[in-house]
């Protein structure tokens, strides 16, 4: 499969994403500079973490207006899968491709640690290969990851099964203490109504090899790859 990994000024997880997709999982992954206007032959888009445009004004607020994001809007509207990680999640919310917003951590601290994720639904291109009961141990590294949505939006997220991951403790319980940033109802990641656009604050690309202490994050990319391959087979048939 062909992955496009976007690169904005001050993206800093772009190389990690390419490394996992290409070197660990054996797929084509190329970096696309934010000034590009086309996604080329990409089957899927990854918007990586970082501090695009220095987080000026609001996280993701400037990046969402870059030329490549116009192409991402069209790609997503046509059903193409888009995964936003950390700053990528913030950009997707600013772009209106995902509902809600990410605001300052309740503790006001930048949190950099490993957390546990519980997958709420395997019914998405991003979670279909994750065993139902498996907790994912992956790192977070953000100062503005507190997920906020108004009541009506939250109700819709739940009704449409759009919440993909919750922050939980090692026992898989959704507790206040396991919530690293004050996110509404421990929400760590969501998808859009059509289920082809997803965002999460934790970094699966930093936990995809035994060397990095956990390989759990790999399941997110393997889900996406499995979904793409199934789609390609369905098209060919």
């Amino acid at each position, binding site marked *: 499969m062909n992955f496009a990994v976007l690169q904005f000024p001050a993206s800093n997880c772009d190389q990690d994403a390419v490394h996992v997709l290409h070197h660990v999982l054996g797929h084509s992954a190329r970096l696309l500079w934010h000034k590009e206007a086309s996604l080329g032959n990409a089957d899927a888009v990854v918007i990586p973490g970082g501090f695009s445009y220095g987080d000026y004004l*609001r996280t993701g607020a400037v990046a969402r207006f870059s030329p490549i994001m116009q192409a991402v809007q069209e790609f997503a509207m046509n059903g193409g899968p888009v995964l936003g990680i950390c700053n990528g999640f913030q950009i997707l919310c600013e772009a209106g491709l995902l509902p809600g917003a990410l605001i*300052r951590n309740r503790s006001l601290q930048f949190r950099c640690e490993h957390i546990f994720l519980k997958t709420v639904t395997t019914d998405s291109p991003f979670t279909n290969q994750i065993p139902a009961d498996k907790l994912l141990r992956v790192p977070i590294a953000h100062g503005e990851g507190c997920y*906020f949505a108004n009541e009506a939006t939250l109700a819709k997220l739940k009704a449409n099964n759009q919440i993909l991951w919750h922050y939980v403790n090692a026992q898989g319980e959704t507790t206040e203490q396991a919530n690293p940033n004050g996110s509404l109802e421990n929400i760590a990641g969501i998808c859009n109504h059509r289920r082809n656009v997803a965002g999460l604050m934790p970094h699966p690309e930093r936990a995809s090899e035994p060397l990095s202490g956990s390989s759990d994050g790999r399941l997110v990319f393997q889900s996406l790859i499995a979904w793409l391959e199934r789609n390609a087979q369905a098209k060919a048939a």
Partner: protein
Amino acid sequence: MKAKIIITPKKAVLDPQGKTVQRALEHMGYQGVAAVHVGKYLEIELTGGDKDAARKQLDEACHRFLSNPVIEDYRLELE
């Protein structure tokens, strides 16, 4: 012409900065602080003198870019 834009977090949105500043003020002995909201202030210098046109344009910019309507309110003043 100059535009002054004040952006504040919506009431329903958690404002940990505001809360922290409030606690600090109380700690320092300042009394009667009911709430603190930390926001942003932007000054935009404009060419041209058409106030209505400027307001229309900046209102749109505030909505699309300068503030995030999901979490923030804004107030626009022109002088």
